[in-house]
Structures are given as structure tokens and as C-alpha cells.
């Protein structure tokens, strides 16, 4: 069993599974820090995946595809921002409605524009190229897993230290956390709570949309109805479990990536896919239970939980 995990191919599979979730989770943690419960990540991922495929197909450019994916993610998230921030609606309700809207809308557009039901793949869709970093990518064991990624893959992993720095070492980050932890205090200091929250939710939509683009232009080059398949929810759990701390969230997402890749591996060993598909979700619940019991204090030291809600 161990010799199957300790291979370069397996590490590559883990990283590949992590990237879309990591992008969405890094966005989600910024929204969480600003005090908005970002529950529409799933919708943003799906919209991003669709936007990326549609734009890449139309223009023949994967860059335009990625930009369109990010834009689609932002547009979806702005519905949440408008409802939850400006109109003080319940973010859970709104998020679920938005996710269903995204599911229906992408399915609708798929049929209306491409006249196809369910799944759309075409040679004209240009996928994202992998960028090899010369030198680093030939490090034995880890080189091809870490240094032969798409641009979005590098963005995903670089966003961890960048967001850590922004959150904990810059004025913007301090204000963002202030807006989330004590909006009234932030307001009295002249910080615009609404503007920060819009920005944070928009950013989370952008990242989730990019995650969707990675999903539909790199992991596979096609769009399928509902292809986000719960990744947005997993990203949300990652944010909660990692207490919205970039490094902790990276760790949790790594666990998800591992269980997804391991599930695939087990499938190759003859275990039914119906069982292995559930693995990441089961692992999440177990991780939640273990961390709540054993590491609750440790997590509290790592980051103070941001206030959620109004």
C-alpha cells in the first residue's frame, strides 16, 4: 500500500486534486475573514468552469478562458455580496439559491448555446498549458509534481504565503480582519465595512472562478453539468476547519487532495467507485471530529475564529 503512495505519480495526483479546491478555499477564507459566510463557492466554481470552457472555445485562447472563468466567478459572488452585505439577507439561504441558480444557468446555457446536454467537449477548447520550471522540475521525487503546473496551479500555491502576508502584515489585512471581527469598531475608525466585504466576496468569487477554470481547462478539457461536484462545499469546510488561516487551510486542503487521489488509487485496486467517491467527505468528517477534540486549543492559537454572520 505504501509503495503506491510514495510515488511521484501519486504526489502529482494529490497536487492536481488540490488546486481547484485550494483556489476556492483561499478566496473563501478572505470572505470569512471579512465576516461574510461565503457559501456560494460551489456556484462560482461551476460558473467559472463554464465561462472558461465557453470563452476558450470561442476565442481559441486559454488565457481569455481563464479570465472569463474568473469573471463568471466574480459575477456569481456579487449576488451574494449584494444580498448578504447590502440587504442583510441570510447568507446560507442566499448561497444555496445561488448555487442552484448556477447549476440551472450553466445547464441552460450549455443547451442553448452549444445545443448539447450534459457534457461539452470539443477540440476547439484550448486547455491550459503546464509550465515547467527548468531545473526545479527535474528534482527527483517532487519536481514534476510541484514545478510542472499550470499558471493557476502556481497562483494557488503562491496565494498561501501572499494571503498570509496580506492578512497579518499589511494595513489592508488588518482592516479586513477588523471588519470581520468587529464591524462597528472598524466603522468608527473610518473603514468602509461594505466596501471591504464587497471586495472580499468578489475576491473569493474570482478565486473560485479560477478554480473552476483549472477544473475545466486543465484537470480535464471539457465542461460537464454540475462538474464542481461538491468541491465548493469542501473548500468551505476547509476554511472552517483551518479557522480561516492560510497555512492551516492549505493543510486541510492537502488532506482532501490526498483522500481524493487515494480514492482514485483504491479504485484502480478494484474497490467500487461508489465507495471511493465518498472518501474525501468521510475523511473531512473524521478530520473535523479529531481536530475538534484533540487540536481545538492548537487551532485556537493558530488563529482566532472570525465572527460569522451580520
Amino acid at each position, binding site marked *: 500500500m505504501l509503495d503506491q503512495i510514495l510515488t511521484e505519480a501519486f504526489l502529482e495526483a494529490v497536487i492536481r486534486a488540490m488546486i481547484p479546491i485550494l483556489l476556492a478555499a483561499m478566496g473563501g477564507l478572505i470572505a470569512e475573514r471579512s465576516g461574510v459566510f461565503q457559501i456560494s463557492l460551489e456556484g462560482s466554481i461551476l460558473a467559472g468552469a463554464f465561462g472558461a470552457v465557453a470563452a476558450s472555445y470561442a476565442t481559441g485562447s486559454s488565457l481569455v478562458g481563464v479570465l472569463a472563468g474568473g469573471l463568471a466567478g466574480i459575477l456569481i459572488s456579487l449576488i451574494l455580496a449584494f444580498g448578504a452585505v*447590502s440587504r*442583510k439577507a441570510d447568507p446560507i439561504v442566499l448561497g444555496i439559491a445561488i448555487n442552484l441558480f448556477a447549476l440551472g444557468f450553466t*445547464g441552460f446555457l450549455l443547451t442553448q448555446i452549444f445545443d448539447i446536454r450534459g457534457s461539452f467537449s470539443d477540440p476547439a477548447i484550448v486547455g491550459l498549458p503546464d509550465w515547467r520550471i527548468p531545473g526545479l522540475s527535474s528534482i527527483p521525487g517532487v519536481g514534476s509534481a510541484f514545478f510542472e503546473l499550470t499558471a493557476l496551479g502556481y497562483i494557488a500555491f503562491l496565494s498561501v504565503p501572499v494571503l498570509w502576508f496580506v492578512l497579518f502584515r499589511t494595513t489592508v489585512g488588518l482592516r479586513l480582519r477588523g471588519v470581520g471581527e468587529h464591524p462597528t469598531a472598524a466603522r468608527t475608525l473610518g473603514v468602509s465595512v461594505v466596501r471591504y466585504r464587497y471586495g472580499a466576496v468578489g475576491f473569493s468569487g474570482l478565486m473560485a472562478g479560477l478554480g473552476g477554470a483549472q477544473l475545466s481547462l486543465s484537470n480535464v478539457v471539457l465542461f460537464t453539468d454540475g462538474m464542481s461536484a461538491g468541491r465548493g462545499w469542501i473548500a468551505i469546510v476547509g476554511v472552517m476547519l483551518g479557522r480561516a488561516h492560510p497555512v492551516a487551510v492549505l493543510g486541510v486542503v492537502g488532506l482532501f487532495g490526498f483522500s481524493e487521489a487515494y480514492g482514485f488509487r483504491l479504485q484502480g485496486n478494484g474497490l467500487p467507485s461508489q465507495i471511493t467517491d465518498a472518501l474525501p467527505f468521510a475523511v473531512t468528517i473524521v478530520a*473535523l471530529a479529531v481536530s475538534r477534540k484533540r487540536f481545538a486549543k492548537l487551532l485556537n492559537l493558530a488563529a482566532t475564529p472570525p465572527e460569522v454572520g451580520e
Partner: protein
Amino acid sequence: MSEHTISVRTTQLEPVWVRIVRVVGGRVSSAILISLLLGVAVVAFSGSGPIEVFSALLTGAVTESGPRNTLARAVPIGGMALAFSIPYRAGVVNLGGQGQMVLGGLVGSIVAIYAPGPDPLVLVVAIVAGAATGAAWAALAALGQWKLMLPILITTLLSNYIADAISGYLIRYHVGDPGASAIAMKPIPLDRRVPTLPILGGVTVSVVVLVIVVIVISIHDRRRVAGYESLMTGYNPSFAWYGGLAVDRQRSTLLIVGGAIGGAVGANLIVGQLFVNIHGDITGTAFAWTGLMVALIAPRNPIAIAIAALGFAGLQVGGLAMQRETGVPGSLALVLQGIIIVVFMTRLVFVRSTWAPRRRAPNADTTLGTIGGGKDA
């Protein structure tokens, strides 16, 4: 908090009929009107004639078999709305409706296909078994919250995927029909399906059962202690706790009741409507999520939930008819549903009265830190 006090006062001062006129005339009609406008824009943008499309949608819902299909669809939607709203009123967010339905449908169809005994009895037992399965599944989430402090919002949500996996595995390898082309069970025997009534050309008995359940719940809410207590916990868990209410136990019970309804709806969907349990079909209907959205329109009013369920069911039936007539995909119905809820929740109204109260949602468990009410306060 001050917002809340104001809302209670206005509600008391205001006669019921004024309130109904205001809500229906304001938020409801605005939501429908705005989503209609957006829907027209979407259809026109995608290159079809909006008038043709929407008249096909409307006629599909009200003519020929439309009303019967609408009623049939309103059962799972309304049922799932109740499964969500009962725990939600006490502040418990049950996102596991889909998994409860899937497992209820699985066990219900196993019973209906394989159990010996007189057919009507087996049918009843099948639905009860479905309810028990849904309840047990929800009880796991309640237990997780109670013993391990796992947030119900998360565990119920994730358990949907696990329920789907369990059901898929069992149907594929153990209880399925090896002769079927898909991952499916045998069809439910003809005599063990939910009987129909001679109204509108055959409405299932389930409709009647659901109507009775709605009436029972609304009486229970207004006239019984437990109904009052669940609303009290929803508005203010600390107050309920200080008042001597075992909030944890109450919330667990309500979640389990919700799970039971979800399981029964799943079983009923198979033995009353689909007649064969194909893996993925229950998930594909998205009834659990539609029901959830319906519930959110009026979480504390079962009768309003029933009416909204009827409306959304009509929208979906009309959407399917529209797809047949015009070729415009039926997923337009999903799009319209989403828009209606977003517009409704964000209170975009054309006519705004200055004294319109803003009601707060009940305190939902959205944080990791909230553990069943005031226990940690």
C-alpha cells in the same frame, strides 16, 4: 436587537389581512415580477421568443396533465420543505435532506420489493421504514453535534455525498437488478405502489397525506407547547435555555423529525411516483434543495410553505412542457427558481412602505463555535 423588537410590535399591531396583502402584494409579487423580467432577458438573450417560451411554460403548468403533475411534484417539494423548516425554526440548519431522501428511498424500495405480507401493509411499512432510515441518518448528525461538537450544517451537508455512495454501492452490488442497464433496482410491484384518487385524472394519496401533515404541524405550532418552544429556541436560544428548556435535546429531536420526513418523502417518491429506484435519480430531481428554498420563503408557516411548493412545482412542470414545445431547456425553471429566491431574500420590492418590518432569520448555527444554544454562554 432593536430591529427585532420593532418587528414584533408591528406584527402585533397589524391585522392579519393587512400583513397578507402587504407580503403578497409587496415581496411575493415583486419577486415574481422581477424574476419574470430577468427570465425574459435570459430567454431573449439566448435567441428564443420570450412570449412564446413563457406562454408555453404557463399553459404547460395549467392545461392537460399539468395540474396533476404539479400536485404530484408539490408532494416531494413540500415534504422536503417541511423536513427543512421543522428543525430550522429552532435554528438547526439541516442541509442533509438529499441524503435522507436517498437512504429513505433505498430502504423503502427494498421493503416494497422484497418484504412478504399483504400489499397495502407492505406499502405502509415501506414508507415508515424510509422514515426510520432518514431519522437514523439525521440522528447521526445530531449525535455528532452533541458528542463531538461537529457542526450540523457541515455534517448533514457532507453526509449527502456519503448517503449517495452507500445507496449507489448497495444498489450496484447487493440489492440491484442485475438485468437493468443502469445501476437500478427492480421496479416496485404494481400492487405495492401508492394508490391514486379519481381527482384530476389520478392524484396519489400522498397529496392527501401531505395536506394532513401540514394541517397537523400548523396546529401543533400554534396550540402546543413543543411548537412554541421550537420557535422560542429559534428566536433566542439563550432565552430558551435560561427558561429551563433542554435546547440540545430539543434541537436533536427536531433534526431527527426532519430526517424522518425526508426519509418518508424519499420512500414515497419511489413507491408513489418513480416506481423504480435508479441510482442518481433522487439526487437528480434536486427536490431536497428546491424544498429547502421553498421553506425559506416562510420558515414558520407550513401553509405558506405548501402554497409556495405548489408554485415551484408548477414552474418545474411548466418548464418541462416548455422544453417539449419550444426546445428551450427545462433548466430555465431552475434558473427562475434561483432568481425568485434571491430577489425575495434580498427584499427587492417595487412598492416599499416605510413601516415594513425587517424580520431577522432565526439564529442559525453558522459558526463553528456555536454549540446548541446557551450551553457555552
